[in-house]
């Protein structure tokens, strides 16, 4: 009897779920016919799995921003409509999500995962959907001549690492301006690149090696195997054998916290550890407790609620109880990253409206707009995002736009800004980007676009 009952229950659950799927699909169809067209935005995010902090923060910040714009009447009157698709940071699920949203004319796809980005790059080209990766993914996609459909504004890993080296030089006494004598301060400095041993972690190895040659640095790579919970042996090596002066913490998710604890155990000063921007959130340092105090991390936007834009979201969206995340996380690093994702998308849509008229923008028009993005200092002030984001200007050749990086420091309670905007070694990075992109183009047989002929 018990078995029969359970089996019947199971069959009912399965049947009910299928009925609901079809019912929902039909209802969605009907709704679409009634209402005015909306700008469809897919959110490939992850609220589950080991990296949920990143995915949920960015996703919710982005949603709250769209909610705010919808309350204000949309972008030039066109409302946002968004849909979440849970990827759990899993590449296969990410591709399934992409296929699911593809036919609904998404404005662009921003998967918040380097692995998914790699898988989607060729698909976006075929389906004419821009693939945007803000602060992750391939650095060489900054070369828009090769990567027509990919965008990595406002900055990428290679820019970030040159900025890191500049910051380290500044800490050694460099004035931050004269590039000619930066080598004097860097010579012989030992830098340990502690990275997680997956493609994401390895991405900065070439540029660090190259800079080591250029400036006389001693760079050694310390791979941490996935998922990086145990880093004892690496830290023994870094502190006792290599005797590093600086450590670059290039981990992700749970493995970001481990170096802080290990460093505390080994007595390595925390203010000699410099994290990637995916290791620079509240969620990364809080579990380490007091061991995290003094830790530096890079970032490409502002943190906290002290910006008119965030205040507006707090007032209007959370005031109306329409927020998408628990209120305590508003203003955190990942949340603000989601908000600036929303702002840049919003600006791109406005750019597209200027060129193609006010209507629902499709992937091809969006690509044009993303390539002609110009967010000036004045415009940022007008939006109320001063200090939250950097000005950027993209072009056919340059899909990076901004490139500036900021360093923040954990004071035990919150992130405080530890440096001004540091601009990367632009020409040098651009050179590397072009070389790498050219290699990719040659492998794939891509014809370089002639940017003087593109409008």
């Amino acid at each position, binding site marked *: 009897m018990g078995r029969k009952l359970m089996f019947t229950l199971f069959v009912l659950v399965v049947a009910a779920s299928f009925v609901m799927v079809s019912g*929902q699909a039909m209802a969605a169809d009907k709704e679409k016919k009634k209402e005015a067209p909306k700008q469809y935005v897919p959110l490939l995010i992850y609220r589950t799995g080991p990296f949920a902090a990143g995915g949920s923060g960015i996703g919710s910040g982005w949603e709250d921003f769209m909610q705010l714009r919808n309350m204000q009447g949309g972008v030039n009157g066109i409302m946002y409509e968004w849909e979440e698709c849970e990827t759990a940071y899993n590449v296969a699920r990410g591709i*399934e999500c992409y296929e699911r949203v593809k036919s609904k004319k998404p404005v662009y796809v921003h998967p918040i995962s380097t692995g998914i980005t790699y898988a989607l790059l060729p698909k976006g080209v075929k389906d004419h959907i821009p693939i945007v990766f803000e602060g992750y993914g391939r650095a060489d996609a900054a070369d828009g001549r090769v990567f027509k459909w990919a965008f990595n504004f406002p900055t990428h890993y290679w820019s970030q690492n040159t900025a890191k080296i500049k910051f380290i030089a500044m800490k050694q006494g460099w004035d931050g301006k004269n590039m000619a004598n930066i080598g004097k301060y860097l010579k012989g400095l030992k830098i340990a690149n502690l990275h997680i041993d997956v493609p994401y972690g390895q991405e900065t190895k070439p540029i660090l090696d190259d800079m080591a040659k250029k400036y006389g640095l001693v760079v050694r790579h310390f791979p941490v195997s996935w998922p990086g919970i145990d880093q004892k042996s690496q830290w023994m090596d870094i502190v006792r054998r290599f005797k590093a002066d600086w450590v670059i913490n290039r981990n992700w998710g749970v493995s970001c916290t481990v170096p802080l604890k290990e460093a505390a155990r080994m007595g390595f000063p925390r203010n000699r550890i410099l994290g990637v921007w995916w290791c620079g959130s509240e969620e990364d340092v809080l579990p380490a407790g007091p061991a995290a105090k003094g830790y530096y991390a890079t970032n490409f936007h502002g943190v906290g609620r002290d910006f008119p834009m965030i205040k507006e979201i707090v007032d209007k969206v959370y005031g109306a109880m329409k927020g998408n995340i628990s209120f305590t996380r508003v203003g955190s690093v990942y949340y603000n990253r989601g908000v600036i994702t929303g702002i840049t998308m919003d600006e791109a849509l406005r750019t597209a409206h200027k060129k193609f008229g006010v209507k629902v923008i499709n992937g091809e028009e969006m690509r044009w707009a993303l390539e002609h993005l110009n967010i000036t200092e004045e415009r940022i002030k007008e939006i109320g995002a001063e200090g939250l984001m950097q000005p950027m200007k993209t072009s056919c050749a340059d899909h990076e736009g901004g490139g500036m990086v900021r360093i923040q420091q954990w004071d035990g309670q919150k992130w405080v800004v530890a440096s001004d905007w540091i601009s990367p070694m632009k020409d040098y990075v651009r050179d590397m980007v072009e070389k790498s992109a050219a290699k990719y183009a040659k492998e794939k047989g891509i014809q370089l676009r002639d940017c003087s002929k593109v409008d």
Partner: protein
Amino acid sequence: MFYRECGNYKDTYAKDMAIFPIPLDRYGFIVMLILALIVIPLIATDYWISSIMIPFYCFALSAFGLNILAGYAGQISIGHAAFMAVGAYASLILYGRYGIPLLPSILGGGIVSAAVGTFFGLPALRIKGFYLAISTLASQFIIQWVIVHWRWVSGGVFGTVEAPDMQIFGWALDTPVRKYYLALCIMILLITIGKNLVRGQLGRNWMAIRDMDYAAEIIGVNLYRDKLIAFAVSTFYAGIAGSLITFCYYGAANIEEFHVMVSFALIGMIIIGGLGTILGSFLGAGFFVLLPIAINQSLGAFMDVVPSDILSNIEAIIFGGLIVLFLIVEPYGMARLWHTIKDKMRLWPFPY
């Protein structure tokens, strides 16, 4: 009523050895074939074809490969996703860099994977059970490491090889339906061969090894040879499945598509589906590939009512709950459920 063996006389050897001795099974199978070959491509949308049916077929093929090893030969392997990765990378390199035609490239992916798999099967000659499981787990990590670090394979730091456009005899396989047919045809061909393998002498040897290896040795089964063949065949299937799924669905081979969780999912597929059955490979693959997506989609109906962070976690809870439920209801797998129903139907309307 119709489902019975009465009047179904096996008067020739051929009839006695038929794969489907009962007429209704045969008709059912033909209906399934018509469904897969004609009806689905006609009615399904691109989304259904490319991101549900193709992965389903590929994972069914891979699960069947693992079933040969674990279900028939009794050698457990927790590194099967890595062999899929070997097949995927090998066939992409053969096709993309060396310009070998598509079908030989896919076959080549399978052969390379089989070679690697046989090598990692060597410990099976000395150890068995849980110990073997751990040594195959090592193969997962070794292969992953090698693929990421061997620049020639993965193209340097990015660890990704993109699938070029596919062509067979100058005929482009560019639409989802065409890719679907490629995956489906290869899957049917390989499953047919596999079914006959496990029905034949080799399959019987494997089952003997699974049930009691020293008894098998006493009656003259060559343990070493047959265990290694099981590894080779099984990883061959995994390699083909891996190359098919990258060519037809993923579009680029990335090591994160084949990490250890996929290996666990494959083990889950054959346990939930039914060890040592072909039907079980399909049911299990359906359970693991289709069900999470179905749950996810149906939960979308509650999007405005329930906070989204709870919603995303509910999917994992329901899916996990269903796994537990299934193992309680039918520990021998879903294929066994079907067999129970079949046995009931044979005796209907007078069951005892």
